[in-house]
């Protein structure tokens, strides 16, 4: 093997403390070195030309460049190598600037180290194998999980770019939490009014295939080549026959057996129902757990009234498998429930607020429904317990959030704003009412946000008290709210008619399960982890899986929508080429000697390792070995160190190369 050594002066950056000509001279006599030189700026055009010429003239097979950090110019020199006809992975960089000339003063010492560094690079390059970039085909279809505003936005953006979208929502209708909201801060425009057109657009979009009342149960594959299995739960309604007339719901004899979860349990729903009138698709679902038919086979009222024969009691769950190229996860959030939590849960619940036993102590979403014109009280503010109009109302912020003793240390970000909104809505509807807000800090960062809160305080005369509430208890029909005004420095007791808790936003209970299904990491709460908190906020660490909305951390609507569009554009970028190219630094198994203990599979952070059967000539499996999916592997090499029989090698950093470097120390 003929190797060329090129020592860069980097102006004076290297040559000030490293005797570059001497390094080049000494290296000339190392085994395998055919050509050795030094130059002022190796990365400059003449420098690169020098490399190219030397390669061609001396028929070099590999080159070592002693220059700045490979993080700076590895790519430059690899490109120079390509232009000279050398495989780019037969280029090694000895870091003579950042890790030598800049950190040592003594010329002799630095020169000696430089020689040793070049020697190590030389020994590595001798063992380097030519590698070619890995190409992976891309299926240009995206799976969006979650049909809230994040999912809707992402789906529309990708679909409008011309790619197919599969949108999966676990509830019977898309819309998510946003459809439950009454009005939105800071503009107080009606939430449904801005959302519903979007929902319809999704439904009608030719590129979007909508799966409601469905769940993603399995995801296999890797970026560009995922395969997702979607379970469509049985609605017991034949979709294309239903006209959405609603007769079945009206006639269902079961009226008060199940709470309406869309109304946050403040109202009931029949056994056959759509969550809300504007549901998309407007097709009902039969709740098997309460429907009489599933108890004793009787009733069948809905069948009788449905003249389109859309009811099918025997319908079963169906599975769909779809090839997709990317995934956007937009599964959203739920609210911290103050009820007593089972032991082992990281959440503790609120004993001091009665663990949810008082009916008029409600959470923010319940208040949204009470305030909503389409809600159970038709927008009138009434107490759930007795329907009286509360004359004194207390809002408590940071219930769960920012309270490590309750299991959560983060700020839920939106509560300051919606509490101000709630208080404002209350004052607008109950003019003689008194509204109190207990807060820790007011975090109103956002366009028009601070102004909004000031308006609640100044124009609507909401009483903001800075302090925590220590206890709520019922006394003679009133809720005694005991707290502290930390500004006045004294205890406060409010005998309220109703209390609204701004509960923390937490991930859905099954968020970790979905994360494991897809293979993305999540934090201790169950929020999905982004690849980099600053520079890659909408990508998960698994290539091809993007995040949008509150499944990643608490977010308000504008943030969610922008994140959804960002995720969508990431997916569109991915789809803009037919094939993906990636660095060939991936691990590979020697199947002959792999013993199939699958410790590698256990340690692989990306699930890139699969089980492969090795068969004898008769087709009988006699051995299972590890197989590394090159599309998924990110080349960390954790498997190589874990492998006991050393059957895995990481291309570009294989063991022989590292041993050679050690030998040249």
């Amino acid at each position: 093997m003929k190797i060329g050594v090129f020592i860069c002066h980097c102006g004076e950056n290297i040559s000030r403390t490293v005797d570059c000509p001497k390094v080049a001279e000494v290296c000339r006599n190392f085994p395998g070195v055919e050509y050795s030189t030094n130059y002022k700026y190796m990365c400059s055009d003449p420098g690169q030309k020098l490399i190219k010429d030397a390669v061609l003239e001396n028929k070099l097979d590999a080159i070592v460049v002693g220059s700045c950090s490979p993080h700076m110019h590895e790519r430059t020199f690899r490109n120079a190598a390509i232009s000279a006809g050398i495989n780019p992975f037969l280029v090694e960089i000895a870091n003579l600037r950042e890790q030598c000339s800049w950190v040592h003063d003594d010329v002799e010492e630095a020169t000696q180290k430089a020689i040793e560094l070049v020697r190590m690079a030389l020994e590595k390059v001798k063992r380097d194998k030519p590698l070619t970039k890995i190409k992976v085909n891309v299926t240009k279809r995206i799976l969006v999980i979650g049909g809230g505003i994040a999912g809707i936005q992402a789906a529309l953006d990708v679909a409008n770019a011309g790619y197919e979208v599969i949108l999966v929502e676990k509830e019977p209708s898309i819309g998510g939490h946003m459809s439950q909201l009454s009005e939105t801060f800071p503009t107080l425009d009606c939430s449904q009014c801005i959302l519903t057109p979007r929902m319809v657009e999704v439904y009608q979009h030719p590129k979007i295939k909508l799966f409601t009342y469905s769940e993603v149960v399995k995801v296999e594959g890797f970026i560009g080549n995922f395969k997702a299995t979607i379970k469509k739960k049985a609605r017991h309604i034949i979709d294309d026959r239903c006209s959405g007339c609603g007769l079945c719901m009206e006639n269902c004899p079961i009226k008060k057996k199940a709470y309406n979860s869309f109304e946050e349990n403040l109202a009931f729903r029949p056994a056959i129902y759509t969550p809300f009138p504007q549901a998309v698709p407007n097709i009902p679902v039969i709740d098997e757990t309460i429907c009489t038919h599933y108890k004793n086979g009787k009733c069948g009222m809905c069948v009788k009234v449905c003249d389109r024969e859309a009811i099918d009691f025997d319908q079963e769950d169906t599975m769909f498998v779809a090839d997709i190229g990317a995934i956007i996860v937009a599964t959203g959030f739920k609210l911290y429930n103050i009820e007593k939590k089972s032991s082992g849960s990281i959440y503790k619940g609120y004993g001091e607020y009665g663990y949810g036993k008082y009916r008029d102590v409600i959470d923010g979403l319940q208040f949204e429904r009470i305030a909503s014109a389409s809600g159970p009280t038709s927008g009138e503010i009434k107490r759930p317990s007795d329907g009286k109009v509360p004359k004194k109302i207390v809002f408590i912020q940071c219930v769960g959030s920012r309270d490590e003793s309750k299991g959560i240390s983060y700020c839920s970000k939106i509560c300051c704003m919606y509490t101000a909104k709630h208080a404002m809505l209350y004052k607008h509807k109950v003019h003689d009412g008194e509204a109190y807000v207990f807060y820790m800090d007011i975090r109103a960062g956002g366009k028009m946000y601070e102004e909004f809160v000031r308006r609640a305080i100044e124009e609507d005369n909401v009483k903001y008290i800075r302090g925590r509430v220590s206890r709520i208890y019922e006394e003679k029909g009133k809720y005694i709210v005991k707290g502290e005004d930390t500004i006045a420095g004294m205890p406060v007791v409010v005998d309220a008619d109703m209390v609204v808790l701004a509960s923390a936003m937490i991930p859905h209970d099954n968020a970790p399960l979905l994360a494991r299904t897809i293979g993305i990491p999540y934090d201790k709460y169950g929020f999905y982890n982004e690849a980099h908190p600053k520079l890659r906020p909408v990508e998960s660490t698994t290539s091809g899986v993007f995040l949008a909305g509150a499944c990643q951390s608490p977010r308000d609507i504008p943030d969610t929508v922008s994140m959804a569009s960002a995720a969508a554009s990431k997916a569109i970028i991915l789809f803009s080429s037919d094939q993906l190219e990636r660095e060939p630094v991936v691990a590979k198994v020697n199947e002959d000697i792999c013993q199939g203990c699958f410790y590698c599979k256990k340690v692989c952070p990306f699930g890139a390792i699969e089980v492969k059967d090795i068969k004898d000539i008769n087709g009988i499996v006699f051995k299972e070995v590890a197989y590394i999916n090159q599309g998924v592997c990110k080349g960390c090499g954790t498997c190589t160190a874990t492998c006991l029989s050393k059957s895995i090698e990481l291309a570009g950093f294989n063991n022989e190369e590292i041993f050679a470097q050690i030998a040249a120390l």
Partner: protein
Amino acid sequence: MNYGYFPGCSQTSSAKEYDLSLRKVFEKLGFGLEELCDWSCCGATSAHATNHKLSNALALRNIVLAGKQGIKNMVAPCAACYNRLITSQHEISMHPERKNETEELLSEKIPADVKVINVLELFFKIGLAKISENRKRDLNGIKAACYYGCLLVRPMNINNFDDAEQPTSMEMIAEAAGATTIDWNYKLECCGAAHSIVRKDIVLNLSKKIIDDAVLNGANVIITACPMCHTNLDMRQRAMKRKYPEHLMIPVLYITELVGLAMGMNVKDLGIDLHYVNFNYDEYIAEKLIA
């Protein structure tokens, strides 16, 4: 099985009847209480506010003694003692340097395997079934408001045997003894505690609120497991009556006394006659012995 017993100062004075009833009840249930030899102050005096080292050293001295006597489970019936002891234990487990410091002060190694429990925990350790099995008398005339006070189920996360915000263990014991319990709001509220002597006015005010809420919710007896709470609730009622003539006097019993009554012991045996507010036996208990 024997349990270690750390009485604490009040058990020998203001809360004699607590000590008495505790010993009697457990004797009858068949469990020995082995009093800690040479026990000393637990440090729950003002020590923990004025001299932290001293308060730890006082508490842990007793733990050292328990270790030497081979005690693994030690009951501290006084909520203040209990709280002080477990807090000190927790502190040295979190801060090895404080452990070293205290060990130096005591010139002894502090054992790690002495578990301090309160009376409620003790009942749970022997099993509530034991109480119902030994029930001799019907207590269903008693509507008990179980009052925990501020120390018994705290500090949160150190004491894990019951919920720190909505405890229910005392209710379970009272019900096992055959009493009816009520749901009320003041079971953890402050009684005034150590202000008992210096600021009677505060104590009076706070304790009255507790008693009033119990009465409001239909209680006819308040149950406690803390000598200090008992003192404030029981002793201060006459003063309340003087200040608020409409005040309803309500007897305050220790949980051990309640269990003792259920087991057929009489008022005198249990020292209930030492209370300030008279416990009119007949009013609450129809003398009906269960076979």
